[in-house]
């Protein structure tokens, strides 16, 4: 259900959405009944958006982004012009119907009828006193320029010209911040990582991207690039080029696919790569997993910034190497002035960890996925990025749950790691010999066996330290065994036997010659 399928579904939904929107924009929005809407609101919306519509429900401080404050009347996703504060009814309708990916706002189309959603639209508007207002004018889309290599090329140039978009979204669009952004309430916001279209609140259809560039995202530092007063103003045509370029940034190969639960390590005869940018990694199969915040044990952590991790692995006769790759908008270096300026107070190092059971049971039993349990200890390889004083390093932990942790010397066991940060992405290689001297304390890697493996990551600029981090559940690591000659020999045998049978059958049925 996750990942690529989602995008496909998203596309279908989007097409339906665009279709519906097209219909909706031609016929005026259906009149909703605010009184009916209030009934639905008090049952479905009130826990997040609150009775008063100010978004200060009981979970507000645990949600990032926070629930919308309807009383302010500011809507991020709208199709009216930049000088028009009120959104179109269809904008509110769409956000309720489809929800907002990457937030706690779900789609309501499966629960509420269209009429009920219109009723809600009518009620929600009353919080800002929009109920009597004439609908704002729709922004001017001009004529859409379809995506093409030329258009994308033009868009790319405009994106980087005067550091127009790259100022916040980074050179490669990963939202790698060079400055700290906040919204009108003073809450921290992050520039969108445009290589992850499944986190776009609306969608990555060029029309939606065009809309964001044109109206900006009200209430945030994403400004309108159509405003005549803007020094970096863009014509309609130029905005379509940028929209096409942004859409082209999607990293489709790093979409999470629910069916991919196994990291498959291929065997190579040479020495394993030490460095994350070794070209041999390109030939390996990436597997991407969701990272979710640690909300299970104390201290629970609700506002993560990392959301996926991509894993590759290789092994040789003696060693295993794992490459971990994840987008992190900030290189967090404690002691570094610039890094501390972008960071939340109390900056920490960026970090990543691999968790492995020490023993693989023949039964299904595994250690508890949160750092093991009393009967089933785990190995944790914990890499940290370093400060201005210390270099990067890796530590080895043996743990039996959150509280019983033994620190061991990674170097003696032969675990090595090397990290590299480029343009909003960390890549870290971890290596260990397949076997170690202490088989009761370290997992011994064997090819052909499914080995449980889990991951965790820390963004040091996002107050992530200790138990405040993102993590995955158990997945699998498989050192792919050599296939051997058995299948090919058996196949040849079958071919010969079938052919012989057919041959003798046919022969026995032919009239005898000569």
């Amino acid at each position, binding site marked *: 259900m996750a990942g690529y399928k989602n995008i496909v579904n998203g596309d279908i939904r989007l097409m339906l959405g665009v279709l519906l929107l097209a219909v909706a924009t031609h016929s005026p929005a259906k009149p909703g009944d605010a009184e009916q809407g209030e009934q639905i609101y008090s049952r479905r919306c009130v826990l997040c958006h609150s009775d008063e519509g100010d978004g200060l429900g009981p*979970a507000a401080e645990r949600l990032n982004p926070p629930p919308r404050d309807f009383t302010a009347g500011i809507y991020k996703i709208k199709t009216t012009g930049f000088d028009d504060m009120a959104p179109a009814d269809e904008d509110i309708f769409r956000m309720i119907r489809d929800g907002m990916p*990457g937030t706690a706002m*779900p789609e309501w189309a499966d629960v509420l009828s269209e009429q009920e959603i219109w009723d809600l639209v009518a009620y929600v508007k009353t919080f800002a006193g929009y109920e009597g207002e004439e609908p704002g004018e729709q922004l001017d889309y001009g004529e859409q320029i379809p995506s093409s290599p030329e258009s994308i090329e033009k868009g790319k140039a405009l994106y980087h010209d005067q550091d127009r978009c790259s100022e916040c979204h980074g050179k490669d669009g990963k939202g790698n911040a060079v400055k700290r952004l906040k919204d009108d309430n003073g809450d921290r916001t992050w520039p969108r990582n445009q290589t992850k279209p499944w986190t776009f609140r609306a969608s990555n259809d060029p029309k939606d991207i065009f809309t964001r560039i044109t109206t900006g995202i009200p209430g945030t530092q994403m400004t309108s690039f159509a405003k005549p007063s803007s020094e970096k103003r863009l014509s309609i045509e130029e905005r379509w080029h940028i929209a096409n370029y942004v859409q082209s940034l999607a990293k489709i190969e790093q979409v999470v696919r629910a069916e991919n639960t196994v990291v498959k390590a291929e065997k190579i005869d040479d020495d394993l790569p030490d460095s994350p940018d070794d070209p041999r990694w390109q030939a390996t199969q990436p597997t991407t997993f969701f990272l979710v915040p640690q*909300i299970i044990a104390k201290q629970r952590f609700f506002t993560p910034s990392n959301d996926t991790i991509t894993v590759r692995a290789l092994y040789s006769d003696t060693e295993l190497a794992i490459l971990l790759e994840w987008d992190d908008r900030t290189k967090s270096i404690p002691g570094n002035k610039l890094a501390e300026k972008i960071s939340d107070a109390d900056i920490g190092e960026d970090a990543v960890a691999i968790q492995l059971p020490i023993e693989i049971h023949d039964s299904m039993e*595994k250690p508890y996925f949160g750092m093991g349990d009393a009967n089933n200890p785990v190995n944790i390889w914990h890499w940290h990025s370093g400060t201005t004083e210390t270099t990067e390093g890796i530590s080895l932990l043996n743990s039996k749950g959150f509280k019983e942790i033994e620190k061991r010397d990674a170097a003696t066991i032969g675990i090595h790691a090397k990290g590299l940060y480029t343009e909003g992405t960390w890549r870290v290689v971890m290596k260990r010999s397949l076997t170690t001297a202490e088989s009761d304390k370290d997992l011994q890697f064997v090819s052909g066996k499914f080995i449980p493996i889990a991951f965790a990551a820390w963004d040091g600029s996002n107050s992530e330290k200790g138990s405040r981090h993102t993590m995955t559940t158990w997945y699998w690591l*498989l050192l792919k065994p050599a296939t051997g000659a058995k299948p090919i020999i058996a196949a040849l045998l079958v071919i010969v036997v079938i*052919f012989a049978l*057919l*041959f003798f059958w046919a022969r026995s049925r032919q009239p005898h010659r000569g």
Partner: protein
Amino acid sequence: MKIPRLLQAVLVLLGVYFGFILLFDVILKQVIPSSLLNMYMFFVVAGVFMVFTFTEEGAKELLAPIKALVEDPNNKTNRNIVFIILPLLGGAYTYNKLLPSFDAPVELRTIHPAPPASLKAYGKRYDILNLENPYRKFEKEDPERFKELIAEGGAVYIRNCQYCHGDKLDGKGPYAQGLNPMPMNFQDVGTIAQLQESYLFWRIASGGPGLPKEASPWISSMPVWQDFLSEEEIWKVILYLYDYTGHRPRTWGEE
């Protein structure tokens, strides 16, 4: 034009095969396991064969094209082609079957394991068999108070549970996709509608680590809620779960 009987049989088999796939994978959105499909198809093939060979004439007609291919000297070219393709297909099938599988092992777990007789939580021992929601009685005695309790339960839910179980209690919260097993869908008639409130209290208070072995406690992401919530908060959130979904908790049936 009459369709040859052999082709008819083959078309029927293909029709049934893709019919199954259409029905299960596309319409019901439940991918049919290949072992089950193979079993169904075994019976279908046997049935089709029996129907098509019911009379001797029919059987002859069915096998005529095969007979002609093997016996008729004029069919030499076709025969040679078939005799090369068939062994190759057999070889390819064998090869693929014998390649080691790199699919993740299937792990089955009990979703609603039997509860223990008693539960230790909050420094007390609860007898699960006779445990009742202390607030349930207000449903009849004091509906106003009952409504307040549900609202308080809702606040507990949205602060603590929706991240996984979702705003709509459908098990599709913002972090659900990163978890395995997936969070429980309370809207489904197969979950809380089948359970007693005491069962929910046990599951919430002791969380994933409190599950018995057959339910794979090591992968459940359910926190041990007695570490975070008071006893009262758990009972209130249970009221909310039933109220929002419209389900009724199961009881011992005296009502």
